[in-house]
């Protein structure tokens, strides 16, 4: 599964678990409007580290938390690429 699909899959799973309704998952979706709250994103980052093996935010100290879903996916794609190079 691609990183993007993994992320979207996990978001749907967490929304189900937390009883939240998810907005349609498009690249320009602002994360604050996605339906997940901060605890939901905290769980998402932890789960993604389990499935993808990276936490790009904790690894890089200056990493800003992205605003949109597209940017969020990019952070993980870049993280995976950096790990592949290293």
């Amino acid at each position, binding site marked *: 599964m691609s990183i993007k699909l993994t992320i979207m899959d996990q978001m749907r799973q967490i929304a189900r*678990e*937390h009883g939240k309704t998810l907005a349609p998952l498009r690249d320009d979706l602002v994360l604050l409007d996605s339906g997940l709250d*901060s*605890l939901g*994103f*905290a*769980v998402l*980052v*932890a*789960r993604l*580290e*389990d499935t993808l093996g990276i*936490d790009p*935010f*904790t690894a890089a100290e200056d*990493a800003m*938390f992205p605003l949109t879903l597209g940017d969020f996916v990019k952070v993980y794609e870049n993280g995976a690429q950096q790990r592949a190079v290293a």
Partner: protein
Amino acid sequence: MKMVRSNAPSLKGRIADAAPERFFWDRAARLCVNHLARGTSLGGRLAELAGRSVVVATASQLTTALALIELDGVARRLTILPPDTAADHLAALTACAEADAVVIDEGTPSHEALELPVRVVCAPAIVPAEQLSLPQAQTEWVLLTSGTSGVPKMAAHSLASLIAPIGAGQRLDGAVVWGTFYDIRRYGGLQIFLRAIIGGASLVLSCAGEPIADHLARLGRCGVTHLSGTPSHWRRALMSSEIGKISPRYVRLSGEIADQAILDSLRATFPEAGVSHAYASTEAGVAFEVSDGLAGFPASFLDHDRDSVELRLVDGALHIRSPRMAERYLGAQQAPLRDHDGFVDTGDMVERHDDRYVFAGRRGGIINVGGLKIHPEEIEAVINRHPQVRMSLVRPKQNPVTGSIVIADVVLKADCAHSGGELQIKNDILELCRDALPRHKVPATISIVPALDVAATGKLARRYG
């Protein structure tokens, strides 16, 4: 508070040379301790230790036991070193104890800090010796607390405070053989050592590094009837195929929160046994024992003093005042052990559920998830309710959104460890947590692990602040 100190007989005075004989076992030896009434393990050098501040630095628990029996009522102070005392701390500890003598055995590692004016070797054997008439001392017993870092604190007890929890009811019918998963050089284990002596019972000592299966088999061979340990000790024992080798009449838990799952497991494994969980700490002593098979303790314990033990809650933390607690910490720099009312702050947080208080966790162990405070023990108790879970550890994980988040490591029961379906079990556990806990307490992830570390204290190792 003014403490009433009885002039109780010394330990040696309680070792009658009459029948019934009682034995202390370790892995290598079995000794009839009655012989101490007319013998010695200290090479006949007891008189040299009279009135001194003695550090007991023996490597084996058997020699520790023998030395303690001989020295109580003779030495001015007994400082008992647990086996894992860091060598770096020895100098500070012996200085603080104003030690001028040390008891060692052949396994004691040599260390400069133990080069004290009098060095006596304790042998794992008792040889006949003439009994000297030595001046009676009110021996101060110093126990080290199990702090996570820095030099351990030194809590000063008397024999009277140590044996105060051992009521008349401890003189039990029939031959009693005590066993403990603890080391007797810690409060929990020392209580069992003293119970064996006061109750005229035998005692099976634990041995560091002995596999749990061997220990259980040895307990079985010695016919253990009364067995004590932490919930973590018991969870490990229940994972062993050798658990069937023992059939204790009395099962005791202390030192950690006894959740309903471990109490139920023990009752199912030993249907004939009484199962009790005790609340105790090195500083506060044994505060109470609960024998109704339920986790926590009746709320009425807070309303009525029981056996001169007073409990009160301060900001959710349990405070205790009783004749069983330590007198003070040794060392001028230490904060007082008791508050101005004479209560000890245990740092253990309790919550009321109907007519019962349950332990929530340690005040210092709180995990902060986005500003919400979590006791990991509360989540572990829920996870442990899953029928396939043997034990669990909930710990914080750094998180860019909420600062921390909780995750769980889970050990499955032996018979399901290889049955596959781990994903299903993880999902079941998460569902259990979602049903029982608010969202922020549900672990973000669950890992199935083969084992969890148990520290030398018998408690689950929690490697975070």
